[in-house]
């Protein structure tokens, strides 16, 4: 068609301003590379020496395990909270709102330290009839709450409050007509949710959840305040004794960057999976 067209050929718009910035950016990048290679403060040999140090690798493993478990708690509890907020009757939605208000309203650092010191409030954790009735099962709180369980509870319960709002926003993003059409076809309530609503809500849930997971990977470093040996804690332990602060922070940063990079790739695959029937999946990067 175009070869035969008698009309004028339209060229792309000329945008010289795009090229003006290029030398400037080139200079900045060159300076950064120069610094990285020549500034002895980076101590690349020290970085390389500690990058695969066993204690560091244990810390990486702990960071990963904590992130996975905390996000599992966050997503499951958050999903339940979101559903409770949509449930009929005034009492349950109000409880969910109160939970979200409380856990979003207090700093996660406070929550972490609180859980770690639970023993001073409840010396014994028991299961039985409340208000002084017989106990079926009891354990000392100091034994039950290790730094790992404190980190799990502190970060997980806090994350649930944020995930609840993300899931709720996702469910609200699905048109009301979808659940009506599903009901009209005779789908049961659970089928309507699982087959019709949730797959559509996922499009709005996945991107912010990816954000939360990436954030959580780094928030787990807060668990170092309760003495959990995650990546940040293992790095701190080393530079506390050898004073190579910058190189060891670089070791931590490199590991965080690698893990976040892998998560971002996984997220883009999940987003593509839910980009049904549109070109949004191919268009958006």
């Amino acid at each position, binding site marked *: 068609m175009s070869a035969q067209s008698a009309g004028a050929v339209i060229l792309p718009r000329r945008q010289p301003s795009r090229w003006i910035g290029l030398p400037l950016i080139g200079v900045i990048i060159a300076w950064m590379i120069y610094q990285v290679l020549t500034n002895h403060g980076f101590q690349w040999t020290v970085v390389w020496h500690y990058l695969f140090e066993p204690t560091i690798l244990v810390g990486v493993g702990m960071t990963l395990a904590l992130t996975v478990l905390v996000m599992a708690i966050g997503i499951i509890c958050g999903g339940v909270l979101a559903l409770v907020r949509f449930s009929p009757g005034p009492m349950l939605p109000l409880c969910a709102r109160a939970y979200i208000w409380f856990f979003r309203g207090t700093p996660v650092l406070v929550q972490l330290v609180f859980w770690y010191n639970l023993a001073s409030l409840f010396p014994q954790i028991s299961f039985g009839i409340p208000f002084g009735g017989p106990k079926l099962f009891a354990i000392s709180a100091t034994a039950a709450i290790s730094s790992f369980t404190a980190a799990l509870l502190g970060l997980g319960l806090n994350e649930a409050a944020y995930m609840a709002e993300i899931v709720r926003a996702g469910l609200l993003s699905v048109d009301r007509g*979808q659940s009506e059409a599903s*009901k*009209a*076809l*005779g*789908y049961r309530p659970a089928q309507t949710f699982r087959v019709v609503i949730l797959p559509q809500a996922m499009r709005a849930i996945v991107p912010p959840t990816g954000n939360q997971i990436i954030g959580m990977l780094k928030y787990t470093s807060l668990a170092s305040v309760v003495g959990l040996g995650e990546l940040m804690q293992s790095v701190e332990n080393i530079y506390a004794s050898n004073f190579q602060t910058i190189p060891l922070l670089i070791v931590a940063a490199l590991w965080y960057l690698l893990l976040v990079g892998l998560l971002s790739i996984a997220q883009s695959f999940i987003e593509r999976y*839910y980009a049904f029937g549109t070109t949004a999946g191919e268009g958006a990067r």
Partner: protein
Amino acid sequence: MNADRPMVRIDDLWLSRGVNAILKGVSLTVARGSVTALLGPSGAGKSTLLRCVNALETYDRGLIHVDDLLIGCEKRGDQYFRLGERVLSRQRAEIGMVFQSFNLFPHMTVLENIIGAPIRVRGQGRAEAIAHARDLLRKVGLSEKEHAFPKQLSGGQQQRIAIARSLAMRPKLMLFDEPTSALDPHLVGEVLHVIRDLAKGGMTMMIVTHEVQFAREVADRVAVMVDGQIAECGPAAAVLSNPQDARVRAFLSRTLRPDA
């Protein structure tokens, strides 16, 4: 089944939302194999009445029977109680509904949209469901679109798929809620054509519509609603050509000559 028992029997239906009374004592019967068109100005309660018939709305007073089955509530002692959603879903499975905004599931292909309910709700085998779906796609003239997603179809095509999706459940009654109101004028014809075929096939239907000409041609009976009540109900030709009620006359003259 007794052929002279009506398919739908609505007795003295009342519904209000907050302080607004939307239905004020509506009674209507729809005979088996007949087509009833619901006309009337917007806000008269036509769509709400239709949505009550498959229990998408909760009404305050009155009873609805479809094929002699009480819809939306059950009698315990001498009182009536609203049914739970699981029982309602079984009742709705017998009644097809087509919406103004199509409401196809955008994350499923055309075929998946159609076979979903027969497989998941009726427990039909996949092969059988697909065969029936292809049959229905042929009837609505969209055989070549079975692997398309809803967004890739025109409004008229989407609405024909929505009709096929409802028919896949082999409903005894079809409800149409302004099926052509969201369509470009040149796409209205293809949807009306499908509905006309259904009428010829003997399907019992209730159609909320603004297409007076279509109602005259396809409907056996016409009910004109004004302000939450049925102002006039009778054979299509009689009501549309010679309305007795002044409000109905006013509505029809406005609709037939919008520029007047």
